[in-house]
Structures are given as structure tokens and as C-alpha cells.
């Protein structure tokens, strides 16, 4: 169906009506504009009508705002539909054709089966449609999670967690991904906390990087998260990302990225790692690590033994256990005291 073509079947605004409106408006403007006081009576009448609109029984279209922060509230929309929610949104429609625009929080839906009731929950990330079932929708910064208790639903994510964006007629849990880089960053952190696989985390970070504008803090943060994930699986790629972070001039995690780059580069060669190790000697004293000096000294030993010795002697005072032993061995190799 061509929706635009169907919509164009509607009558276009009548040019004569526009002329009438223009005349009416000019006439109003030439008179004194009505004061606010003259609007009080109609406003009160309108408020009364609106109140009646809410309380009158019947199956006319209705619209209600759902707003419960903290405690869970219950709304019986009709004999067929009941909600339990903590969060905010809007519910509209008739008893048998209901649409919920869900803005945030958790909403549990009970729809009586075999009543022909159609219900949709719309979030920025997904549309969930249901006939005769029970399910919950939870929306937070990490996306939307749909947990189907029983019955049937159709979930249509804008961005799905799995490859298949349309899941229908199955019981289980589905996640629709957030639509912003910030949401992807939050989701990546949540996945890390919950012990998700590196592959899952990498997928989310990559999606976030596709959304983030290069040069923004958001892009830098996501790049740093990718370095962390790739360090365990693809070190050359992690090194490239860390160096991209530094080249782009991001500052919030500069020392951390410099350190990551130095360690990743050492797996290739000292020459590759030296610029990063040298840069780490320039960071503020609060961010310095004695081990950075030991690694630099080890690389410098063949060419600049005196500087290597100085670095190691300074580091030894701050190191403990295995790190201290490593520095001591390096000093011994130089013929130190």
C-alpha cells in the first residue's frame, strides 16, 4: 500500500476557508485582543469537559499519562488490559486497541487472551505488538528489554541485539539496542559488569563508534573501550586504536591509552614502544608508574646504559615483589651496585 497516495485522498485545505480565516483573523486584530480574563470561563469549561472525558465510561479514544517514579503503580485500562509500571509514558486508544508510548522505566502488560485486543508498545528503539499475552518492557540507557512471560508478541527493533530484527511468536527475552552512541557506551559498560563475552562487547562498541562523531568525547570514550576489549583478542588492532586515540588529541584517558599503547607495542619491538614509554616519563607525577621507567630502561639498556641505570635506580625505591625483582635483574645486567 502506498501510504502517501492513500493520504493524498484526503481533501486538501479549502482555499476559501483560508480566505475566511484571514478575514476573521484581521477582524479580530482590528478589535482589541481578548484579555486573558475573558478566557477563564471557556478554560474552566474546557477543564470540566476534559475531566468528564477522563471519567465518563464508554469506548471512546482516551489518552492518559503514566508517571510513577520509584514505586510501582497499577492501571486497569479496560476489562482486557492492565498495566503495572514504574516509569513514564502515555497510553492511548480504546479498550481493545491500545498504544503505549513508553519513555523510560519498566512496564508489565497483561492482555486478556482471545478478546481480539490489539496492543502496541512503542519506544524509540522498538515496537512491541501483542495479542493475548503477558510481558514486560524495560527501557533504560542501555536499550529496551522485552521479557515475554507467556503468549505471543511481535518485536520490531530499530536496532536488534541479534541479526534478526523481527522476532515473532516466541517466548523469551529480546533486547533492542539504544539508538545513540551514549546509549551504546552505557550498554558496553553494563555488558562488562555482567561478564558478557568480548565478542558481544566488541559488537556494541563498534555500533557506538559508527554512531559517534569523530573528534567528540563520546568517540574517544568508545575508542578507549575498544582498546580494552581488543587487547585480549587482537593486539595489533588494539595498538592501532590506542594510537588513533592519542593522535586524535583526546585527553580524558590520555595516560591510560599511552600506557596501553606502550605495552601493546612492546610485543612488537622496543623501537615501536619507545615513543610511548618516553611520553609516559612526561606525565604528571600523580599518573606516573615506576614500571613504565623499568620498561623504558630495558629498551634503553643496549644503547644508553647510563640513562637506563638512573631510571632503574629511581624505580627500585618504589617497586615491590616481582616488579622489584625485574628491575633488580635489569640493574644486574648493566653491572650495577
Amino acid at each position, binding site marked *: 500500500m502506498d501510504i502517501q497516495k492513500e493520504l493524498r485522498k484526503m481533501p486538501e485545505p479549502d482555499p476559501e476557508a483560508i480566505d475566511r480565516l484571514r478575514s476573521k483573523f484581521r477582524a479580530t486584530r482590528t478589535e482589541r485582543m481578548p484579555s486573558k480574563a475573558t478566557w477563564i470561563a471557556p478554560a474552566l469549561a474546557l477543564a470540566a469537559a476534559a475531566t468528564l472525558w477522563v471519567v465518563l465510561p464508554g469506548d471512546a479514544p482516551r489518552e492518559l499519562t503514566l508517571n510513577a517514579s520509584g514505586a510501582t503503580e497499577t492501571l486497569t485500562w479496560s476489562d482486557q488490559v492492565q498495566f503495572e509500571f514504574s516509569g513514564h509514558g502515555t497510553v492511548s486508544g480504546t479498550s481493545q486497541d491500545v498504544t503505549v508510548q513508553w519513555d523510560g522505566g519498566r512496564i508489565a502488560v497483561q492482555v486478556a487472551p482471545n478478546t481480539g485486543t490489539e496492543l502496541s508498545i*512503542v519506544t524509540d528503539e522498538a515496537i512491541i505488538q501483542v495479542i493475548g499475552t503477558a510481558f514486560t518492557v524495560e527501557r533504560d540507557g542501555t536499550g529496551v528489554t522485552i521479557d515475554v512471560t507467556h503468549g505471543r508478541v511481535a518485536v520490531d527493533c530499530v536496532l536488534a541485539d541479534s541479526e534478526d530484527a523481527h522476532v515473532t511468536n516466541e517466548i523469551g527475552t529480546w533486547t533492542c539496542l539504544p539508538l545513540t552512541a551514549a546509549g551504546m557506551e552505557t550498554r558496553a559498560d553494563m555488558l562488562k559488569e555482567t561478564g558478557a563475552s568480548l565478542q558481544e562487547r566488541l559488537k556494541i562498541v563498534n555500533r557506538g563508534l559508527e554512531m559517534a562523531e569523530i573528534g567528540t568525547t563520546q568517540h574517544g570514550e568508545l575508542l578507549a573501550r575498544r582498546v580494552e576489549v581488543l587487547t585480549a583478542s587482537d593486539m595489533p588492532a588494539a595498538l592501532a586504536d590506542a594510537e588513533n586515540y592519542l593522535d586524535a588529541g583526546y585527553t580524558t584517558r590520555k595516560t591510560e591509552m599511552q600506557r596501553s599503547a606502550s605495552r601493546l607495542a612492546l610485543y612488537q619491538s622496543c623501537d615501536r614502544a619507545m615513543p610511548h614509554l618516553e611520553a609516559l616519563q612526561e606525565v604528571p607525577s600523580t599518573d606516573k608508574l615506576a614500571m613504565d621507567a623499568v620498561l623504558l630502561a630495558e629498551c634503553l639498556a643496549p644503547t644508553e646504559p647510563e640513562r637506563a641505570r638512573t631510571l632503574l635506580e629511581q624505580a627500585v625505591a618504589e617497586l615491590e615483589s616481582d616488579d622489584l625483582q625485574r628491575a633488580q635483574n635489569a640493574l644486574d645486567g648493566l653491572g650495577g651496585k
Partner: protein
Amino acid sequence: MSLAIPNPSLVPAALAREPGALDALAEAWLPHVYRWCHRLGGPSLDAEDAAHEALIVMCRRLDSVNSPAVFQSWLFNICRKIIANQRKRAWFKRWVPGAAVREQEFAGWGPDRSLEARRAAVMVWKVLERLPESQREVLVLVELEERTNAETAELLNIPTGTVKSRLRAAREAFRRDLQRITPHPSNAAPSAKVS
């Protein structure tokens, strides 16, 4: 069909209270305001009345506009509120004996338009009217006014992703409802959506 956006310089001129600028601004936006009311209000709303009210509110409250850049979105929001109020009033009238709701007439349509075309138009209008307000708005702005998702997002003051998801939901609901009420042999088949 989209209308050209009126001269942007009218807004700062009206905000600066230049003589005649407020009237010029209102007249320039009058066709837009009427179209929004006509399309978003549905057949049971008096679009002329709603547009008139919106223009009066615009003139009275223009001082509250912080920047000319937000004027269009601000004006659209006035229309939305007035339409919502008038729709509730129209609904209430159905319960008041003798207060029949005025159905918009096809004043612009000549006798050459068939009865069938008129029926089709009323059906489309009514299906549109049944959509939730948030979906009706994006459908009208994108499909009828031919605005881009970004323009629609700016007008409604919502993210572009929200426009996309609402548009998708609106298209789906519109298609479903229109098919449901359109007399067509294929509609006699049992629905696939049976629990």
C-alpha cells in the same frame, strides 16, 4: 504537498515589535497553521476555529519565544495543544443532546468528484484521526508535508530516531486500520493474527 516557509526575517522583526511585523508574521504563517489544524484535527474538528485560536495565541504569547530559530516548533506546539483541546471538546459534544459534531465539508471539491472518492477520503481521514497523536503528527509531517526526518524532529523537538520509530509505527497502524475498514474481497479472509 509542502508550502514554502515564510520569510524568516519576519520573526525577529515581530519579536522586536516593529510596526506591522506581528500581523505580517501571522498572515504569512496562516496557511501553515490552517493546514496543520486541518490535517491533524481530523473530520470532526473545526480547523478554521482551531487555526484562528492558534493565531490569536501566537500574537499574545510571541514574547515567550527565546529565539527565532525555535519559532516554527513553538507555533506547531500551540497548534497541537489547541487541536488536542478541541478534539476533546468535540468528543464531549457527542454526549450533549443536540450538539452535533460538525463534519468538515468537501468545500473545495467540485461535482466531478465521485461519491466513491469522497467515501475514500473520509475513510483515510478517519483512520488518520484514530492514530495516537504522536504517530499522526509524524505521518502528516513526513508523508503529506514532505518534511525530512530531521526537519520533523526539529519541529517536534524530539530525536530523529524517535521520528523514525514513530513513523514506522504510524505507517503500520495506518495500513492495518485502512485495510480493516476498506471493503475489499481479500479482507474477508481470516486474520493471521489470532492468539
